[in-house]
């Protein structure tokens, strides 16, 4: 007599295996989106290559696809993610290690659909959900530039540092299907505006600019909560490496010209670029045309704010702080530290100087609810990028060696409540954590989205 009763566990296991196989098989079907054998619709001309070079700047491809101190576009930069470190790939036209042998269709699938050369799913560290908006013509120009004008570099790709089973790639196909639009569908959602500048700006911000990667909060499942202005959460600010990334909506406190100056030169009459945005300005926006920068600024200014601003200028409060610092009597520790360490450049008024020393009265990094960015700046300093329009490298020194955790906390607390600023106090523990993070920051890696879920 044979036992026909089967173990229910075995059945469950079989079902799981069958479902997994089915899911895997289906993922392959999902991967078939796009056409790997597609060809360019136009001849490659020097003009097309030049256009592609410009668009590669707009997309800031070099930022992730170049290792620290490495050859341009040869990959190898470590990008930290919640599941491990992802290394960017070689996108030079080297035949053995780069994209030298790729057809236009393969290139297009990687850029706009997140599908690798071998059909596997790319990690969304590659901002293909945004690049899906890039037009066919621009994708062709990028292909022309990368395959014909970039110097080939033979450099093998580095294996990602992600443990099994998280390293299994095929489930990403589902993520992609759920969260990344197909290029064919983006035309419909493209902002139709009566203002051609705003339309151009939206195209750049949502597409190659992939501004939302940092400036839009992410869901638990790591996708950006909105890829264009139709979603209220789009560009409402997020967090990166503990820094508060400012909202780009409601940027009315800066004029269009100030926004353009910031993107073109990393500085304007009140602010200087810091944190990850510094490299964006240096590698990308400072290379863009004035016309495109104005388009970007016009689009951003067209977006209504999602909440009232935290900062409101109040002349009496601002004057009172300046007066107290000038009199320099009855100062608390934070005020005294400000005079001894900060006042030389930012002055008792907290106004700084146009394009040289950032204004502290009203600065977004000062007024952010979470103080990590401000603490980082005080501890590690910063320096402006050298750009064609503003070549000067203006360094702010770090004060980690001059102040204890509690002193930095006192100073930051004063700055966050001095003049018209309005932000919560900073504790010595927060400074201690920031200092520890600073000390263990690994060279050659940038962190992406580690604390980005909201």
């Amino acid at each position: 007599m044979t036992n026909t009763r089967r173990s229910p566990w075995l059945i469950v296991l079989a079902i799981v295996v069958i479902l997994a196989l089915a899911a895997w098989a289906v993922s392959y079907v999902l991967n078939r989106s796009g056409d790997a054998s597609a060809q360019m619709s136009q001849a490659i001309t020097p003009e097309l290559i030049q256009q592609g070079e410009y668009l590669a700047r707009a997309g800031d491809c070099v930022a992730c696809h170049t290792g620290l101190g490495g050859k341009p576009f040869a990959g190898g930069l470590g990008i930290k993610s919640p599941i491990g470190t992802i290394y960017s790939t070689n996108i030079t036209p080297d035949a053995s290690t780069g994209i030298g042998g790729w057809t236009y269709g393969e290139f297009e699938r990687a850029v706009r659909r997140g599908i690798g050369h071998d059909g596997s799913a790319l990690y969304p560290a590659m901002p293909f959900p945004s690049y899906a908006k890039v037009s066919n013509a621009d994708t062709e120009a990028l292909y022309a530039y990368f395959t014909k004008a970039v110097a080939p570099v033979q450099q093998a790709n580095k294996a990602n540092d992600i443990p099994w089973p998280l390293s299994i790639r095929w489930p990403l196909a589902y993520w992609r299907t759920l969260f990344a639009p197909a290029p064919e569908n983006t035309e419909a959602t493209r902002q139709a505006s009566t203002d051609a500048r705003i339309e151009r700006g939206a195209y750049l911000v949502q597409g190659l600019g992939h501004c939302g990667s940092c400036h839009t909060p992410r869901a638990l499942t790591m996708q950006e909560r909105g890829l264009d202005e139709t979603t209220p959460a789009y560009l409402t600010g997020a967090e990166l490496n503990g820094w508060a990334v400012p909202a780009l909506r409601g940027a009315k406190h800066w004029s269009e010209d100030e926004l353009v100056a910031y993107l073109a030169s990393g500085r304007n009459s009140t602010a200087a670029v810091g944190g990850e945005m510094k490299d964006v300005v240096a590698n990308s926006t400072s290379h863009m045309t004035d016309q495109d920068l104005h388009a970007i600024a016009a689009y951003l200014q067209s977006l209504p704010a999602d909440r009232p601003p935290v900062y409101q200028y109040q002349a009496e409060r601002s004057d009172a702080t300046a007066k107290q610092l000038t009199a320099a009597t009855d100062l608390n520790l934070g005020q005294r530290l400000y005079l001894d360490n900060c006042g030389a450049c930012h002055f008792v008024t907290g106004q700084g100087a146009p394009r040289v020393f950032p204004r502290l009265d009203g600065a977004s990094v000062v007024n952010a609810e979470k103080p990590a960015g401000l603490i980082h700046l005080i501890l590690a300093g910063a320096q402006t990028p050298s750009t064609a329009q503003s070549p000067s490298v203006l360094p702010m020194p770090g004060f980690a060696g001059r102040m204890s955790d509690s002193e930095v906390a006192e100073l930051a607390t004063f700055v966050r409540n001095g003049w018209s600023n309005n932000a919560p106090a900073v504790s010595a523990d927060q400074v201690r954590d920031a200092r520890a993070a600073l000390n263990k920051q690994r060279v050659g890696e940038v962190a992406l989205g580690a604390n980005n879920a909201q």
Partner: protein
Amino acid sequence: MANITNDEVDVVVVGLGWAGSLMSIELAQAGLKVRALERGEDRNKADSAYPKPADEYAYGVRNKIMVTPRDGALTVRHNLNDTALPTRQWGAFVPGTGVGGSGLHWTGVLIRPTPTDIKLKTYADQAYKPGQLGEGMQVQDFPFTWEEIEPYMDRFDKICGLSGNTGNLQGRILEGGDPFEGPRSSPFPLPALEDTLNTSMFAEAARKLGYHPFPNPSANVSRAWTNPYGNQIAPCNYCGYCSKYPCLNFSKASPQTAVLDSLKRMENFSYRTHANVLRVDLHPDGKTARGVTYADAQGNEVFQPAKIVVLAAFQFVNVRLMLLSKIGPAYDPVSGTGTVGRNYAFLSNGATTLFFKDKNFNPFATAGATGQMFNDVSPGNFDGPALGIIGGAKIHSSQSTGTPISTSLPAGTAGWGQGWKDGMVDWYGHSMKIGITTSCMSYRGHYLDLDPTYKDPWGLPLLRITFDWKQNELKLQQYLRKIVLNITQELGPDSYSEGYLGLDAHWDITKYVSTHNVGGAVMGDSPKTSALNRYLQSWDVHNVFVPGGNAFPQNFQANPTSMIGSLTLWAAQAIKDQYLKNPGPLVSV
């Protein structure tokens, strides 16, 4: 150690201070492949970020960013019969080194000479009787007109963000500026620095006595400034660390703040540090240079081939390299022939310190160039011919710093220990100075040559200075002293102390004056009396250009940087407009 040959460049620039950085950017912007060689270390703005430079002992006393005597020593003697001895520590002057050179540690006083200053020989011939001026005086004109050089002064003023009051705008005399200055094509780019108590007191007293004071023209900028190269200079915060210090606030115009960030972005520009140029290598016919040879940090000898050689190092280094490389005939003071080494000049200063028990001058809140001065005692503007003296001085009350070690205390106060401390408690902040900075004529017996005895670490002879005070300069000091005394009495201090040269004084190289050494490879109209033509081109080796203080035929009372910057821009323009099209002597004899 090895012999290395670099890739050829269009232009090799020796020295990366003001002259070197200006020449480099102007020629690189014209599309030439330019390489600068700097003997010292690299220095960028982060090296001098707040508050590192605020250290008087390291920078002001121990000369942290100056060349060491080991690397920069000279030998000095008073006359042809003396044996020169080497400078084993710095005193009267302190040459710089490193990227930025003296442009990094200068005070930032940016004054132009007057139209008379640049045509001093013409003026002297008109105003003085033959034989009236001292024997052996050999003053010369600069070989260009005011109208020719002024546009370059104007450009350099804008590169530096010059702050001050305009005195003469296109011939119109304006209130508050220097009425004796030459006509400017455009006004000062930025307003003057704030006055301090001493400057207001001095200006008021001087005005009462009939003089025409104005704020020291300053390259410590008063407002945020973006210059023609797109570089930014920050507004000065009056911290008082300027002279001998790199600016901690990016507020002093320097190669670092005004030029280098733009220059370093250019792919056709490169530079090497710790590259000590040993000689200029000439082609066998001696008529053109083929490059320079330098020693690198590892002790290798490196040949740098170049189509054009620009010697843009400090005056001493330029003259020495010309002598070592046999570019032009060496000057012989006995026969009066030869040109390289001719017309070395220094300058003198003097000061009265006024002590006021009940005034507080807050000297720590000041900029290096803070001060008021007047130019009434300058060639053509006072009765020099009747007095039998030529030259002049800026008479000024400056408050360049409030650092404690350099604070003047009343005569009789102990120089150290408890007595000094007590003196500091009683007198810090209670004194002001009125000073003079004088012109210095050139003389047949004042010159530079190679020392017969002392050698540098590479076995090459040191440069020898032969210089002493002449009666013209000493009489000028005594005349100026009386003017300062009148102003002092007008101000009525509780006490004062004086430091001026007596009529029997000799040059003392142990006491700091300033690093305004000039001449030795001067520019002029004749190859018999000048080493360089009007475009700073060697008369003898036409692809060698030598911008710097070395080109001044004598020292005027204005600080030299304005003229050094302007001359460099003027020469760069001539190279771009004329030399590149037709390489050869730009002035025919």
